[in-house]
């Protein structure tokens, strides 16, 4: 089964779910809600979640012949139930139902998280499907490698981290916390479908191993993933502490890169056209990490570093990422009463990636986007109910830029409207430059309950 076939099957199964089972699911959901609401009255459970409506329009329509998705009209219902009915236990479950009429590939019914917390004297354990967040830096966290990500919309990754079935334990000794994570079965990230605007089209030419440039046809093959059993188990440790105003941690991750390495096989036809077979393969990865944060005067100072040791530690396999270091260091500050009585929060970070082999690598690989990048964010409170946010990143090495602007307005308690603009700039064959046609605006209405 090739990649396209796989996506087709996912699409088909999603369609079948929505067409055949939606009424059954709705009935189940209503029953669950009614049961939960009744339980809430007895103070045993709490039910919450949100309803979100999104519209996205791109400034430039993609070529119709390529059948790319040119908009998104999506609704999300997230239901969350939690309970503290038993002393020293906490239960949480969240289900996301996402329907996108413009991009059926993004439809899903998804168990977001479902876990049980067990609190003991010096130890806490969380068992179940969960999202584990590590790292002191803002947004770009070299030590945060435990959860895969849904990249089906590459710039909409805020809420797209995918929970993993795992055991998280925290053992406390005075100010020291020892974290242990065991993930019994590997789960990969979701990469954009071939009809997505975020799927970068293959080039028309290929460079053969001999160095010769020939016309080429690319074809995606089956994913080669680790076995979906204990053989793909992953684990991680972290030791964190607080000492005289500093937070520190060191960590180690042993598992898999959740993004595939793309193996290429060339078959040169008699007509001089190369058939290039692309096989995505999941490879082993270790990450040695550390981070810190402190306050200096009115400034927050934070930093994080990771050494990513890939399977191609010696840099001899052209299809596997070379081992690399990545560090992030940043300052943040809140300025009060900037205009009127409103606050302004600013954070500026420097991200640097160093490839161990010394080779230059393209930043089009998701693992290599931020090579020598400034990343900044500013949040200004226009009023008590409105906020303007601008985030930007510019890589000085490969010269590409991404800017996101957002205007948030609280219509009432729990009801928020956001207007978001995303803008890309850069040379072709750079990560953000490849998406210059994907400048877009987004309207999001979200009600939390």
């Amino acid at each position, binding site marked *: 089964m090739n990649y396209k076939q796989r996506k087709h099957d996912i699409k088909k199964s999603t369609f079948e779910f929505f067409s055949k089972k939606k009424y059954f699911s709705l009935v189940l959901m209503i029953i669950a809600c009614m049961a939960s609401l009744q339980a809430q009255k007895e103070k045993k459970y709490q039910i919450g979640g949100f309803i979100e409506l999104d519209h996205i329009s791109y400034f430039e329509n993609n070529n119709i012949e390529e059948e790319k998705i040119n908009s998104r009209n999506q609704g999300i219902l997230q239901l969350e139930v939690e309970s503290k009915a038993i002393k020293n236990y906490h239960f949480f479950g969240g289900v996301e139902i996402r329907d996108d009429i413009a991009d059926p590939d993004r439809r899903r019914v998804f168990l977001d998280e479902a876990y049980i917390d067990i609190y003991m004297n010096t130890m806490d354990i969380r068992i179940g499907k969960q999202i584990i967040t590590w790292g002191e830096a803002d947004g770009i966290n070299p030590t945060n490698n435990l959860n895969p990500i849904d990249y089906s919309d590459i710039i909409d990754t805020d809420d797209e981290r995918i929970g993993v079935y795992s055991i998280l334990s925290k053992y*406390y000794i005075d100010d020291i916390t020892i974290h242990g994570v065991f993930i019994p079965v590997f789960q990969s990230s979701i990469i954009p479908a071939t009809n997505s605007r975020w799927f970068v089209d293959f080039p028309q030419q290929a460079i053969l191993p001999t160095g010769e440039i020939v016309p080429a046809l690319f074809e995606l093959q089956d994913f080669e993933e680790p076995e979906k059993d204990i053989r793909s188990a992953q684990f991680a440790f972290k030791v964190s502490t607080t000492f005289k105003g500093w937070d520190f941690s060191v960590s180690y991750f042993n598992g898999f890169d959740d993004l595939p390495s793309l193996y290429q096989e060339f078959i040169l036809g008699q007509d001089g056209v190369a058939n290039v077979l692309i096989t995505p393969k999941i490879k082993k990865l270790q990450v040695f990490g550390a981070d810190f944060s402190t306050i200096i005067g009115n400034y927050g100072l*934070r930093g994080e570093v990771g050494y990513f040791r890939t399977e191609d530690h010696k840099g001899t396999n052209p299809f596997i990422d070379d081992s690399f270091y990545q560090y992030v260091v940043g300052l943040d500050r809140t300025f009060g009463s900037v205009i009127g009585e409103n606050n302004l929060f600013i954070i500026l970070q420097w991200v640097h990636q160093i490839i161990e082999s010394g080779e230059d690598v393209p930043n089009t690989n998701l693992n290599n986007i931020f090579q020598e990048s400034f990343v900044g964010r500013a949040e200004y409170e226009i009023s008590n109910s409105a906020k303007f946010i601008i985030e930007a990143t510019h890589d000085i090495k490969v010269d590409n830029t991404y800017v996101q602007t957002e205007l948030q307005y*609280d219509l009432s308690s729990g009801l928020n409207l956001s207007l978001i603009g995303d803008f890309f700039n850069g040379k072709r064959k750079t990560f953000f430059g490849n998406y210059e046609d994907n400048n877009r605006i987004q309207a999001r209405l979200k009600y939390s309950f």
Partner: protein
Amino acid sequence: MRTFKIVRISVILAVFSFNISMLSAQTGLEVMTKNERQVFADDEKIDITMTLVNKKGKTRARTINQVIKSDETRNRSSIIRFTSPSDVKGTSFLAIEYSDRDDDQWLYLPALGKTRRISSSNQTDNFVGSDFTYEDMGTEDLEDFKYTIIKEETIDGQNCFLVEAIPISTSKIKETGYSKREIYVRKSDFVIAKINFYNKNKVHIKTLTTSDVKKVANSEKSRAYVITMNNHKTNHKTILKFADFQINTGVETDIFSKRNLEKEYSYE
């Protein structure tokens, strides 16, 4: 040492409390000294509803649960958790005050599942979008001010001392947002009834009023159960309604930890 600023709503309450037995106190400093004694309970738990009202009358409400504990050196630890609305529910602050260095402050954001160390805010910054600044919410060092009883006046049927508070220490003059405060202290129970705030240009910019003053159950302390801050510059106001005061109930010290900050229902 940086003043412990971030979430000391209950400190306001303490400022409004006073020792009834000292009716003979007639100087401004004596009034405020007695008031200060009431500020530091060993520990205190409070449920607060904060209502923001804009100039058009539109309201937004947030509910907060706070626990405070003072140690033997009067350093204070505080943990505060937003309990509503849903989009901020679970957001929590932890602050630990030290005598010999800057305070530790962390913010837990449940949507990100992440705890961040944060810097102390400026005294003049507004507290979570309200009309209270961190200075308004904090304790004050009596040595930083000159207190003078100006006159006696009746506020809402209560006879009050009007105490004028003017910053005199160099550090306070630098960090405060006010040139003067007029503090009305009730004679009957020494709870503060009203404060007029004057900015650096000596313009009356805010007025704080209290109501529903009563003794806390199982405690000798009195508390104002409603506090309103009117901002005359923005025509915005913030109303704090307090419920379920629990004072000196023996709160455990280990509640004030990052471990606890990230837990749900940690201090219920």
